[in-house]
């Protein structure tokens, strides 16, 4: 089973916004999105058990190579980085188009992504990729096993999980905490440097419609929360009960 994993480089500290209202991505501390590590771990476990290779695809500035190196250190065998100045500020739709085109260049049975990035939180890219590729998608996956129909998938719900039979190829997003991502060994980090990283150009991808469909016109800080009410003394218990009742918790 060949798996393509989508990976993103995200800022590790508090991200800063540039004059164009976009996150400054160069020269800041950044790492592979921790949310992506779950998908990657699931993919690595699948290929370790059932054969096949893991390819990591990322779109971003040159620094996104770090995220790919991390994924290669964890055990992926090939990296693909799509980097082009014209993609700066790409919205979710453009990102999905680019990723879909890049994924299409490689043989795959499964595409794995995190549920959402931990910087943008749109959560729409993976399903859009599935739509563009014309394949099925299942979100919030906690377990996946190959089956006769393709894959047997457990999807997290509020109450527990649903079980799906899904034809392959498909796109799945993996829930945080469903697997324990491995910590790359130093040997892995060293070997990662020898692994191939393809850098297809936009022409190679043959993508059209790469103009952002959305622009950020203004950014306003969320209003800070007003301080809560501090209850003390003998009346505290009664007051807390009142407040909980007001909040319709009890």
């Amino acid at each position, binding site marked *: 089973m060949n798996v393509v994993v989508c990976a993103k480089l995200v800022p590790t500290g508090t991200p800063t916004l540039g004059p164009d209202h976009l996150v400054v991505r160069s020269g800041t501390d950044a*790492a592979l999105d921790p949310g992506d590590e779950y998908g990657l771990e699931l993919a690595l476990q699948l290929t370790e058990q059932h054969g096949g290779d893991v390819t990591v695809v990322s779109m971003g500035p040159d620094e996104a190579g770090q995220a790919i190196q991390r994924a290669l250190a964890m055990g992926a065998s090939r990296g693909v980085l799509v980097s082009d100045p014209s993609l700066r500020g790409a919205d979710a739709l453009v990102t999905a188009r680019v990723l879909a085109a890049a994924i299409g260049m490689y043989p795959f049975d499964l595409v794995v992504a995190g549920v959402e990035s931990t910087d943008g939180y749109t959560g729409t890219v993976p399903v859009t990729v599935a739509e563009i590729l014309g394949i099925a998608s299942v979100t919030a996956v906690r377990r996946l096993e190959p089956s006769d129909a393709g894959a047997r998938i457990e999807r997290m719900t509020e109450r527990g999980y649903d079980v799906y039979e899904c034809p392959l190829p498909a796109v799945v997003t993996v829930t945080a905490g469903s697997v324990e991502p491995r910590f790359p*060994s*130093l040997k892995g980090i060293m070997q990662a440097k020898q692994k191939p990283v393809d850098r297809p150009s936009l022409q190679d991808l043959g993508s059209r419609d790469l103009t952002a469909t959305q622009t950020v016109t203004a950014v306003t800080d969320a209003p800070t929360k007003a301080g809560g009410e501090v209850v003390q003394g003998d009346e505290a218990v009664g007051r807390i009960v009142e407040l909980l009742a007001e909040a319709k918790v009890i």
Partner: protein
Amino acid sequence: MAVLTVAVTLFWRRARSRLEVLRAARPAARTDHPGERARRELSHVLGQRKLFQKAAPGVMHAFIFWGFLVLLPTIVEAMLAAIDRHWTFPYLGHVAWFAFLQDLFATLVVVGVAIAFTIRKIQRPDRFRGSHMEEADRILLAILGIVTTLLLWNASRIALGIAGHPAAAPVADGLSGLFGAGRGTEVAERVLVWSHLLLVLGFLTYLPRSKHLHIITAAPNVYLATNHPRGYLEPLRIDLDSADADVRLGASVATDLSRKQVLDLFSCTECGRCQEVCPAWNTGKALSPKLLIMDLRDQVAKEAPLITAGAAGIVELQPLVPNAVADQVVWDCVTCGACVRECPVDIEHVDTIVDLRRNLVMAESRFPNEAGAMLRGVESSENPWGQSASARTDWTASVEDIRVLQPGDPPPEILFWVGCAGAFDERAQRTTQSIARLLTAAGVDYAILGPRERCTGDPARRMGHEYLFQMLAEANVEILNGAGVTKIVASCAHCFNTLANEYPDYGGAYEVVHHTELLSALVAEGRLRPDPAGGRGSVTYHDACYLGRHNGRYDAPREVLRAAGAAAVEMPRHGERSFCCGAGGARMWMEETEGTRINDTRFAEAEATGAETVATACPYCFVMLDDAAKAKGSAVRVADVATLLAESTLAEPGG
């Protein structure tokens, strides 16, 4: 002559395989400061200093050891006499004092063997669990046989009138009554001298493959012991850009061990003193430092032919973990160094354990899952808590006038190294605040690095991630040197140890003091005036391993407590023999599921003193013992020495 040749040849053939294993091992750079090493030979080997850490076994061993030193020439004397009963040393063979020494020390050896058997057969201490008891019995009986035949031989010579000074050898003289003066005694004399010699030579051939090899290996092992404070780990430089084959990532197979590490294995006599003090073993964990050394030794011995052949070709050695030592054993260690302190022959268990961890973490990425969060935190956020750097100054919110050293600022007289625990852990923050208030009250010119401070790398290093440590050490040294820092006060015993002992290897040489030392000095100088009448009640001080045993700082925290008006009571295990809180060696970030909890065990010991307060001097100890107190619902308070001093000194101690 033929017998001698056979024995020596056998000995040499057996010893050579050990020697070749040593030769094939990684060289250990342990020959600096020969003066200090020679002094250690005098105290540890000749003086038997570490043996005397236990009284009866110390006397037992010293009698046997000194006895054998004195009796070594006797072997040659016996050989000469074996050829011709009248042959002896030109000078020694004729003087009364040598006859006296021989008689005295042979007797002392007999006494020593008797003590040994009493300990082993009647006392039966638990430290021998897992040791080869029958082998020990064989060795002791052989020793007994050697000296008894010697004494009886001398007695027979007295009876025959060959010996010059019967009065100088009262024991042999007394025994000579057993013999007549006739033909029978002449035969007995021959039989005895030959029995003595055959026993000695037989023992020689038995040595190389037995645990008794220590009589040859112990002295060099003591010589090669580290000259650094015990908390120091030797750096393993990792350059990721060099060729794969050149990068050593700790100890995977036997040939990855250094000569000192291999010599350690051949020096162990299985006395179990290390096992007796090990916090892991004492709380029902799999790790015993003694069994670890024995298991590694057995694998190295088993693979000896492969190892020595390996110099010429490629061999498949089995990984030491899990073949010789189970994974869990390697992770049980708190790196408290109690084993190393007890070991009479200076075996360095902790260094070997860390080397095994290095391979598991850096090459195999195999370690207890839960510790991954710590490594991730240190890797991406530069602190084990995974907090953002900007939160490092959160604790200053309730303390006035904390100077955060900005780039380009003039350096303070003392840099206060807060440490990650002191900055992020809610309980440890109280200690940090107490220290800051005290320093301000004493008018000390100090500053903190704030967000520019990173983890020293200690937890990563003790966990085995040497590369992560190296990166953090280099980054911290760059900041500290760039800021012109010359003197540092650290509140965490682990930071203290790393900054003081390990950063010099990375270009960071500073005068590093622990906060208890600085506070003690400030009190002595009169810059802090605690009110001794404040009455802190009875306090028992828990020595942090990385402050006490690893760095010899025992007095300063106790002085501070006295100044604060505390009535000190000591736990049975204190000072050099303090018992770990359970958090060292990155155990702070690992689950403790086997046996009883180390912190509970230690806290119970503290509670049993009847003290109202347990004082600590390290945030790890504080958190571990406080957890234990809370779990037990105990009324005993756990607090840092600095907090207690602040309460006695400051009008508003806060915190």
